């Protein structure tokens, strides 16, 4: 038995893994797969349901069959996914979401990165007050109603019609937590790097862009990923402040806002809803897989000391 398992482990012999270790590895993988299933079952369910017609879905609901696709009628899967693109045109909203995300990522990193750099490296009167405010706003969670924010954007700043786009981007640009994250990260960059540049006569902005940012790939990636996930998943705020597009015009809604609207249309099937959810989760997964290494690094270097 042991030998059999050992044979299955690829290149075990060449890598010099002993049979004992090999068994440990196999046990590890088995436990890992079981655990993974415990965390992946929503995705399995979404994938399975996206292949079903409404009747097949009704028949499977509530039983273990809801986690298995309807192999008998795979044409239904093609139909569901086809409809998501053809009837509901979600690709347009996906493009919007990418644009919003890109704008938020870029502005968020610039604004909060600069602030974090100043808080970490420069000395100026009023700094202690600002440090206190930053910790205070993170530690003391104020339950704010969304009403004042709405009034600020709509009445005070007058961001109506198309300018509402700025109402999506600007509030997402500022993140006290990201300032905190950047500050902690930059504090751990040795002073020496900057001093070398300063001797060459570079000013603070140049130092930030040419020395600090390039050294901060991991934290920039971390912030970018969380900005992306945040923008991509947000539906409440955008659907509150963006006007709904008139027919024949390019819509302003991002993907999740559009999805909640589409889901309320009579006649949409559960399979189609799941197909649209699968399609819209793909970008997040790709980005997360690519960036997870940096996230661990970024958090690690920042140290997250409260």
């Amino acid at each position, binding site marked *: 038995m042991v030998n059999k398992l050992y044979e299955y482990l690829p290149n075990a012999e060449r890598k010099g893994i002993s049979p004992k270790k090999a068994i440990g590895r196999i046990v590890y993988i088995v436990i890992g797969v079981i655990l993974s299933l415990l965390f992946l079952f929503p995705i399995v369910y979404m994938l399975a349901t996206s292949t079903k017609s*409404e*009747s*097949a*879905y*009704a*028949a499977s*609901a*509530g039983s273990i069959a809801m986690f298995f696709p309807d192999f008998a009628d795979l044409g239904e899967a093609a139909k569901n996914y086809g409809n998501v693109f053809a009837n509901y045109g979600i690709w347009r909203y996906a493009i*919007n979401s990418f*644009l*919003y995300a*890109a*704008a938020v*990522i*870029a*502005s968020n*990193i*610039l604004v909060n990165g600069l602030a974090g750099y100043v808080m970490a490296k420069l000395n100026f009167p009023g700094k202690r007050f600002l440090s206190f405010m930053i910790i205070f706003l993170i530690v003391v969670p104020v339950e704010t109603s969304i*009403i004042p924010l*709405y*009034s600020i954007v*709509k*009445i005070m700043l007058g961001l109506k*019609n*198309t*300018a*509402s*786009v700025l109402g999506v*981007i600007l509030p997402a640009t500022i993140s006290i937590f990201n300032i905190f994250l950047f500050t902690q990260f930059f504090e751990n960059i040795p002073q020496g790097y900057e001093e070398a540049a300063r001797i060459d006569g570079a000013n603070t902005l140049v130092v930030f*862009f*040419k020395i600090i*940012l*390039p*050294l901060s*790939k991991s934290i*920039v990636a971390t912030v970018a990923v969380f900005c992306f996930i945040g923008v991509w998943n947000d*539906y*409440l705020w955008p*659907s*509150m402040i963006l*006007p*709904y*597009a*008139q*027919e024949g*015009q*390019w*819509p*302003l809604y991002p993907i999740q*806002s559009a999805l*909640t*609207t*589409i*889901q*309320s*249309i*009579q*006649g949409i*099937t559960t399979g189609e809803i799941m197909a649209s959810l699968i399609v819209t989760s793909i970008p997040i997964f790709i980005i997360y897989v690519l960036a997870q290494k940096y996230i661990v690094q970024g958090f690690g270097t920042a140290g997250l000391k409260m």
Partner: protein
Amino acid sequence: MKKLVNFLLVLTLACVTTLSVVACGGSATDGESGEVDPATGNTIVKILFHVDEKSTEGQAYKKRIEAFNAAYKDKNIKASATYKARSAGAAGYETELLNNQVSGTLADIITFDAPNTASYANSELLYDITSLVPKDVQDDFFSLNTYGGKLYGLPIQESSAGFYYNKKIFREHGIDVSSYTVENPWTFAQFKDVCKQLKDSGVTAVDMRIDATKDETATYLLYPFIYAAGGEFTSADGYTATGYFNSSKTADGFNFIKSLIEEGYTSYAIGATDFFDGSVGMYLSSGWTIPDLDHKYKAVFASRDDWGLLPYPKSEVAASATGSWSFGITNNHHTDKTAAKELLLWLASTESSEAITTATGMIPARKSVNTDYEQGSPEYTLLKQLETSGRERPVTVAYPTFSTCFNQVVSALGSGDVTSLLNTQANTLQNEMNRLK
């Protein structure tokens, strides 16, 4: 790493420009509501709809708005519609409405769900239209949205509910319900008898939707049982719940539902799709289930020969669910309501009513709309039931609390004692009413 910096800068610029270009392309320049557009001399009437523009209902509204604009071109009135779908979560239509109210940009005409009439009227969000709508027009509606004796809204379309049943199951077990028609509805006892026959045949008898207590569904479908038992929820002015919500007749109604649970005819465990896969005998739902049964579940319900619709059972009286969305004029800062009145009467006209219900498949709001439903068809049952026994939900400013209290009672029916449940909730509801006085 200069690349990263440049990339970020270029990205910001690119996005901001793209978005502003996209944004400008989509901008609507309809002018301010209720005001005269200087370019054309038109008075703009703004209207806010609660459905998606691309939905069948949205398309029907859109056609009526276009027709209005064509007809009123000479009179210099122009309607401008905004569509904000009523979607899941807090981002839907009601939020938009309230946000517009907060920012003072409320449209001239809005749509609203009937139970909101009292609170919208009481807080002066809605304008009193009693004198704007001619008497004969008012009389032609199955129901009107009134509060304190004044008219605040005209229904767009009506709704009614009933018991969908699986004819195949009924035939198979020899259960005959053909004598229970809308003209001669069944009684609570007869209803229970059918449940018993189904149970004895090994079928889950009825999905009463007692698990649907997270939103308005359970309230909307179950309140007629309490009225049928002779119960009440609030006083006529909507400010007293004690003595109504916990009266013995009200308890009778809830006890009937509780007995269905206890005798094993219904349960909280029935899944939302169980009726549609053919494992439940009857299913309490509104008219919107008709298109689903016609199109979505071909495997179990191939044609109308496989399912039917039964009315609500009666006890002391017959009562059935009603209520739908309505049009109302708002009390925004525009004092001249003549243009808004024209649009309101246009949208609530027999012609519009017919066009809208043809598209949605719902029951028309006006009696004068020609309906050629075949006798005994589900649509016919719903329409007749609405005429004979339709009764609206209680009119009270505390409606949201009423709905929560009702849900809490239904949700605890399985385990709790009805009288003490009703006393607790009557108390909660009364407190809220006192607060709103």
